[in-house]
């Protein structure tokens, strides 16, 4: 057998638009690998037999098996293997925090400070090649079972469940309140990070399997649980946990204060960045914006705000190192001109006599060790109050529950956060025939985890539909 060559250090980096250029466009700034680079990168993978990258992928993609197909130049086959586990390869290749998942455990990293295979870049490459080349891509599904499933919410969890159920031969109808499907992938994550063509294509492939997506349907209003119960053999709840939260300081009612979700929805769903020429939904431009928060959402608000020609600040009460967003992303927004204020806590939003925001009053923080051994805790530094002048404050401090779709299900066990963490290991709720997954279960996580939930729930639903067995394992 030939000796394995470990190419530990020559990782191909994802080509990016230069900062000056990218902050002027809502187009995607990570450009994707050209073919020769992708194939070279694929050859860095040594196709491990017991690949350590797989178990740390939340969707458990069979990574070496599809990378091998890329090595052979067989992109459709690579994409097909990805889709055995996830219908959103193009999306995940772009938005997964791979450095904390698959790429954190690649064998190439185990020695000499090696660099992992660019798994995300390759996943995106396989998916994009199939789409952009326009090659026919058909997927098989089992013969019609005659069973019908309602999926509530067209986010990654719901659409993933719909996909795997359709492949099993069940009839699936997805109910979505918004005018477009996709959930956070549509209204939250900016097109600069996720090209909508890639998203649209993967949703189309799901529809091609016969899944019907009914947008403009608010579950709990347009249609109720009782109606669904009569019409369907099982129900999957994937409505997320997406209500924008506010920071809870004085001045939140002032003109110019937004939740991150409002700010992003205007721009990403209703295309307000084209106002007034190409879209009718307004969003201020050329102002001074302060984004409050330190996660994915805060980064997306910064990316978006910079592209609207705003002077853009971030205030976060912890440090960059203790934030939940990626290091790389802070670098990117800093390169684009964002001003990052770490260890800074807002205490009041200040307005003028017309009720418009004129600034945000903050206090400096320091991190002190947590007595219980948890994350270090931020503590205010006395006499460090200061004001950052601004016109707009965007509150990116997390999302809360949105129980409208399930609050009226008789007997359903809802947890104290108003979510459905009460499901068992098979994503069953305590109500027979009703399953749930994604953010509505875990209160806010990742796209890939939502996909995994959707897939496993689909398997459990399939089992239930075929056997009629129902044994809720949670506490009654």
């Amino acid at each position, binding site marked *: 057998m030939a000796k394995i060559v470990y190419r530990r250090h020559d990782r191909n980096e994802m080509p990016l638009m230069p900062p000056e250029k990218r902050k002027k466009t809502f187009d995607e700034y990570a450009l994707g690998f050209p073919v020769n680079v992708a194939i070279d990168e694929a050859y860095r993978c040594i196709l491990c037999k017991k690949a350590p990258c797989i178990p740390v992928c939340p969707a458990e993609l069979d990574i070496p098996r599809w990378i091998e197909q890329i090595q052979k130049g067989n992109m459709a086959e690579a994409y097909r293997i990805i889709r055995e586990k996830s219908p959103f390869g193009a999306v995940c290749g772009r938005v997964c925090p791979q450095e904390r998942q698959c790429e954190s455990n690649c064998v190439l990293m185990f020695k000499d400070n090696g660099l992992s295979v660019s798994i995300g870049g390759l996943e995106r490459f396989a998916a994009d090649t199939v789409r952009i080349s326009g090659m026919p891509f058909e997927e098989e599904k089992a013969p019609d079972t005659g069973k019908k499933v309602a999926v509530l919410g067209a986010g990654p969890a719901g659409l993933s469940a719909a996909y795997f159920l359709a492949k099993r031969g069940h009839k699936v109808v997805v109910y979505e*309140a*918004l005018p477009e499907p996709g959930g956070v992938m549509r209204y939250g994550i900016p097109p600069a990070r996720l090209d909508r063509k890639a998203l649209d294509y993967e949703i189309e492939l799901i529809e091609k399997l016969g899944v019907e997506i009914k947008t*403009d349907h*608010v579950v709990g209003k*347009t249609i109720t649980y009782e109606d669904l119960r009569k019409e369907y053999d099982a129900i999957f709840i994937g409505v997320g946990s997406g209500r924008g939260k506010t920071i809870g300081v004085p001045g939140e009612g002032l*003109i110019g204060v937004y*939740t991150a979700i409002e700010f992003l929805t205007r721009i990403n769903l209703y*295309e307000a960045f084209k106002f007034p020429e190409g879209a009718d939904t*307004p969003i201020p431009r050329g102002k001074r914006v302060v984004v409050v928060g330190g996660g994915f959402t805060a980064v997306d608000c910064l990316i978006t705000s910079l592209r609207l020609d705003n002077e853009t600040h971030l205030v976060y009460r912890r440090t960059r190192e203790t934030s939940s967003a990626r290091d790389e992303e802070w670098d990117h927004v800093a390169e684009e001109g964002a001003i990052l204020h770490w260890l800074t806590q807002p205490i009041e939003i200040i307005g003028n006599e017309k009720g418009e925001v004129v600034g945000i009053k903050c206090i400096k923080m320091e991190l002190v060790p947590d007595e219980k051994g948890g994350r270090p805790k931020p503590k205010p530094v006395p006499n460090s109050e200061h004001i950052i002048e601004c016109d707009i404050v965007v509150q990116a401090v997390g999302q809360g529950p949105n129980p*409208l779709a399930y609050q009226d299900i008789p007997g359903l066990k809802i947890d104290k956060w108003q979510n459905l963490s009460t499901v068992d290991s098979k994503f069953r709720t305590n109500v027979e025939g009703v399953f749930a997954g994604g953010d509505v279960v875990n209160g806010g996580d990742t796209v890939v985890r939502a996909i995994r939930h959707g897939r496993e729930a689909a398997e459990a639903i399939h089992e239930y539909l075929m056997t009629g067995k129902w044994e809720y394992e949670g506490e009654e």
Partner: protein
Amino acid sequence: MGFPILKKEVLNDRFYILEVHAPHVLEKFAPGQFVMVLPKKGGEIIPLTVFKYDTQKGSITLLIEVRGKSTKELLVRFNEGDEVRDVVGPVGAKPHLEKVGKVLLVGYNYGNACVYNIGKGLKDIGNEIHFIAGFESEETALSYTLFKDISSDIKVVSGGIKKVKEEVRDFIDANKDTSLVVSAGIPEFEKEIEEVADVFEVPHLTHASAIMIDPVGLAGSDRVFVDGEVKYASLDGPWFDGHKLDYDSLIQRNNIFVDYEKEALRKFEEELEKERKRAARKKRV
């Protein structure tokens, strides 16, 4: 997809009616609820009350006041047979309606559609309905015949908010047994009606026209303060206790985008003007 316009009727320079095929809205519809309409891709989603409806036809009728770009565009660009892209709904809480006796509905401009709709619900459970339909001017006032099936006492009042307020005061003064006032329109108007309701100590149900961009309260643009508490107009409303709604903050928040809205309307009117000129030129040739 899309929702076809079955009928369009221009009532005057300010108001028009669209009847839209949207059967999904009607399965669970209750008086007091509304829809959100996105006219086209790239359009702005706007809340509109279900003014009247026809379950048999699966259609809803919207009574629309021209205020800015979206309501103007719907008027000039959409005709019978065209489709509006999205009709989401029904949206809003089902208000708890009770038989209370004598009810006075007071609308102002588009608010007449809102009070008519909930008024129908109040009438159907046996209340005695009186209706003051307020308008800004005589030219833009609508005929009472539009509302006549819910009351035999309809008074059309034009000439602005203050005049409508006077009428309301006179009505309650003369009808001390009024057990509920229901008002809708811009919050500046509702605030004035609240003043009267407060003085006469009559319960007041009012309509929070907050800015809404999604039907499940995700964005929170529609947060209003009721009795000091944050509520979402699209979810908990739009109908709230008129004695408890904070009108000033609603007025403030409704003005957030005024400059942008003016710009959008101006641009659109320029576009229409250009088209008119072009058409006129063509005619001459």
